[in-house]
C-alpha cells in the first residue's frame, strides 16, 4: 500500500525542501502566522490528495520532516473532513469539495476550556428550537479556529444520564452571527498553524447543518480520532526524522566517532524504525476499513514520544549548535504531539482497554 508511493514521497520531499527554506520556516515561526500562499501552492501542485489516505500519511510525514509548523499548516485545512465525508449530507459534501479545492479552510471544534481530553464532559449546547438549533458555549485550542471558513462542531443537543449520548456534530459557517474567534498567541511550537478560542453566542443553526444523526456526535468524533491519530503519528515520525537528519549531518560533518554518540544515534534510529513500522501497520488496517484502534493508539503514543525523544536528543547531541533556529524549532514543535488528538495518557487508557477486551 505504501511502497508503491515512493515517487510520490520523493515529490513531496522535493517540494518541502524547495519551499520550506530555513528563512521561510523561521519567519512564520517568528511571526506566528499562517502561510496561506503555501497552502494554495501545495494545492495547485497536488501535494495534498485527501482522496488517498496513504498519500496523506506520506505527505504529512515528509512535510513535517522538513518543518512541522509549515507541514501541519499545509495539511490541516482539511481537518475534520472525514466526519463530513462519512456522515455529511450533500450540501455539506459540496462544501467539503470546495475545501479540497482550496476555496475554504475547515477546522474541528471539540475541546473546551474546562474539558481537555474529556470529550464527554463538554458544555457547549445546541438546543433545538423549532427546526433550528441554538449554539452556545466555547471551544479551546481549535486549530484553524481564527482562519477557518467552516468548522465541524461537537455540541450537546440533549441531556442524557450517559454523557456519551446526546452529543451531535454540526457544520458551522464562521460568518454566522454570534461567532467569534480569538487567536491564541505565544505557542511553544507549530507556530505557523492557527490556534484559537471560539465563542458561540446564540448562533442559529439549521437542521441542514447537523452532520449525520442527532445524538451520535460522540461516536462520530471518536471514529474521527481513530483516523486523525494516525496522522499525528505521521507528523511525529516526520519530526523525529527531521531531528534525526540533523543528528546525522552533525555527526558526519564533525567526523564524530565516539561510541557514546553512536549509541545515541542508534537509539534514535531504532525508535524511529519502531514508530514507522507500528504506524504503517496500523494505517494499513485503517485504510482498508478494518481499523484496529489499539494499534492506532499505540502508534500515536509511541511515535509522539519518539518525536520528543529525537528532538531532545538532537538538542543534546548538537550541544551549543542546537541553539540555531532550525534544531531548536524542531524541539519546540515536537511537544504538541504528545498533547493533541488525545494525550499520551488517554492513549494508554485506550490501549489498555482494548488489550483487556481482546482476550
Amino acid at each position, binding site marked *: 500500500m505504501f511502497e508503491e508511493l515512493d515517487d510520490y514521497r520523493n515529490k513531496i520531499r522535493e517540494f518541502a525542501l524547495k519551499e520550506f527554506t530555513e528563512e521561510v520556516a523561521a519567519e512564520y515561526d517568528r511571526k506566528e502566522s499562517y502561510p496561506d500562499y503555501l497552502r494554495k501552492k501545495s494545492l495547485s501542485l497536488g501535494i495534498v490528495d485527501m482522496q488517498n489516505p496513504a498519500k496523506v500519511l506520506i505527505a504529512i510525514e515528509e512535510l513535517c520532516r522538513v518543518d512541522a509548523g509549515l507541514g501541519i499548516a499545509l495539511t490541516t485545512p482539511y481537518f475534520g473532513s472525514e466526519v463530513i465525508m462519512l456522515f455529511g449530507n450533500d450540501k455539506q459534501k459540496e462544501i467539503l469539495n470546495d475545501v479540497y479545492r482550496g476555496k475554504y479552510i475547515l477546522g474541528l471544534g471539540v475541546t473546551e476550556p474546562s474539558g481537555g481530553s474529556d470529550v464527554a*464532559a463538554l458544555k457547549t449546547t445546541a438546543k433545538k428550537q423549532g427546526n433550528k438549533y441554538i449554539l452556545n458555549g466555547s471551544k479551546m485550542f481549535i486549530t484553524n479556529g481564527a482562519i477557518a471558513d467552516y468548522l465541524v462542531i461537537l455540541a450537546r443537543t440533549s441531556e442524557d444520564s450517559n454523557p456519551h449520548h446526546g452529543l451531535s456534530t454540526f457544520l458551522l459557517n464562521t460568518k454566522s452571527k454570534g461567532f467569534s474567534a480569538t487567536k491564541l498567541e505565544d*505557542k*511553544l511550537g507549530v507556530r505557523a498553524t492557527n490556534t484559537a478560542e471560539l465563542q458561540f453566542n446564540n448562533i442559529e443553526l439549521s437542521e441542514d447543518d447537523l452532520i449525520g444523526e442527532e445524538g451520535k456526535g460522540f461516536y462520530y468524533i471518536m471514529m474521527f480520532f481513530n483516523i486523525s491519530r494516525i496522522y499525528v503519528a505521521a507528523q511525529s515520525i516526520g519530526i523525529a526524522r527531521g531531528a534525526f537528519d540533523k543528528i546525522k549531518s552533525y555527526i558526519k560533518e564533525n567526523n564524530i566517532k565516539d561510541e557514546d554518540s553512536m549509541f545515541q544515534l542508534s537509539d534514535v534510529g531504532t525508535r524511529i524504525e519502531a514508530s514507522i513500522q507500528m504506524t504503517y501497520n496500523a494505517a494499513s488496517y485503517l485504510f482498508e476499513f478494518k481499523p484496529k484502534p489499539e494499534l492506532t493508539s499505540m502508534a500515536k503514543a509511541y511515535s509522539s514520544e519518539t518525536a520528543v525523544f529525537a528532538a*531532545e536528543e538532537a538538542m543534546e547531541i548538537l550541544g*551549543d549548535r542546537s541553539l540555531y533556529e532550525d534544531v531548536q524549532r524542531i524541539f519546540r514543535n515536537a*511537544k504538541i504531539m504528545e498533547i*493533541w488528538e488525545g494525550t*499520551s495518557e488517554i492513549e*494508554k487508557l485506550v490501549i489498555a482497554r482494548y488489550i483487556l477486551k481482546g482476550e
Partner: protein
Amino acid sequence: MEEENNILRETVAEFCEKNLDEKKIETDGIDKKLTQLLAEQGFLGCAIPDKYSGSGLDETSYEIILEEIAKYSPTVAMRIFVLNSMYYPAVNGTAAEETLKDASTGKINIAVDFINKKTGNESVSGKIKGTLKNILGTDADKLVVFNDGTSLVSGPFKSESRDFMGFRGLKFGDLFLDNSVQVLDKSNRLSEIMEKAYGPASAIALGMIASALQKAIDYTNVRKAFGSQLRDFEPVSFRLARFRSTEVILRNSLYGKVDPYYTFNFAMEHLVEIARYSVNTHGGYGYFKDFGVEKFYRDAIVMKSIFYGTEELRKLTDHVYSEKINFI
C-alpha cells in the same frame, strides 16, 4: 546557621515575588531598573568579595539565592551565575579585576562566551577581530572569551540579536568584533571554571525543577478531568510524587556533603524530564506562554545542551574511576 539560611531564602523569595515578572523579562530583557534593584539587594554580585562591591556571601547562601531566583526567573539566575561563577573567577587576580566593582553594582553588563567553549578568533596585538556567534548577553560591556588563553574583550560591541529559545531575557546573538583585548591567562580556563561552578549551576537547575514541579502539582489540585480531580489520576500524581522525591534529594545533595560532580550530574539528568512532564500535566495549556510552564522546558533543554555533554560526562567518569572507594 540553618535558620539564617531560611531567613535568606524567605527574603529572596519575597523579593522575587515582588520584582520578578518572568513573562515581562522574557519579552523585554533584564532592564536597567531591575539590574539596579538586584545590585542594591546584594544579589547581583552576591559571591564576589566586598572589596569589589560584592556581598561576599558563602557558597551555600549564593546557591540559595540562585535556587530561589531560578524558581521565578531562570534568566535572572543565569545572569547572576555568569557574573559570579564565570566572570569573577576569570578576572579575579588579574589586572581586570577592577571591572568587578562596576559589574557587581550593575553599572556595566558582562558576558562570558562559555557556549562556544573555544573561539577561533585569536587575539593579535591587543585586538580581536571577527564574528562571535551565539553569545548569551550581546548587550555586554565586557566579554570574557576562551581561545588558547582566557581573554577579556572590551566593548562597546557591534551586535545582532536573534531570538533565543531559552533564557530569553538575556540578549542572544552574534558579535562583530574589532575590539581591544586583554589576555587574562595564557591557558584556556573554561573547563576549570566550569567544574567549580557545578554547585551554583545545580542550584539554578534545582530552582527550575522545584518551580515547574510545583506548577504541575498545583494544577492537578485544581484541574478536573473525567469527573474527578487530576490528582486522583494516579499515573500522573505518582509520577509527580516521584519527582518530588528527586527534588528533595537533589536539594539535600546540593546543600549537604555530596561531591558537586555527583550533584551536578544528578541535576542535569532530571531537569529536562521534570520540566517536560510539567508541560504534559497542563495539557493544551502547557503549550502556551501564558501559563508559564513551557518556558521551564525551553530553559531546561538549553541548560542541559550547553552545560552537559560528552565532555562533562568524561570528567564525571574520570572522577569516579580515579576515586578511592572505601570498599573492599
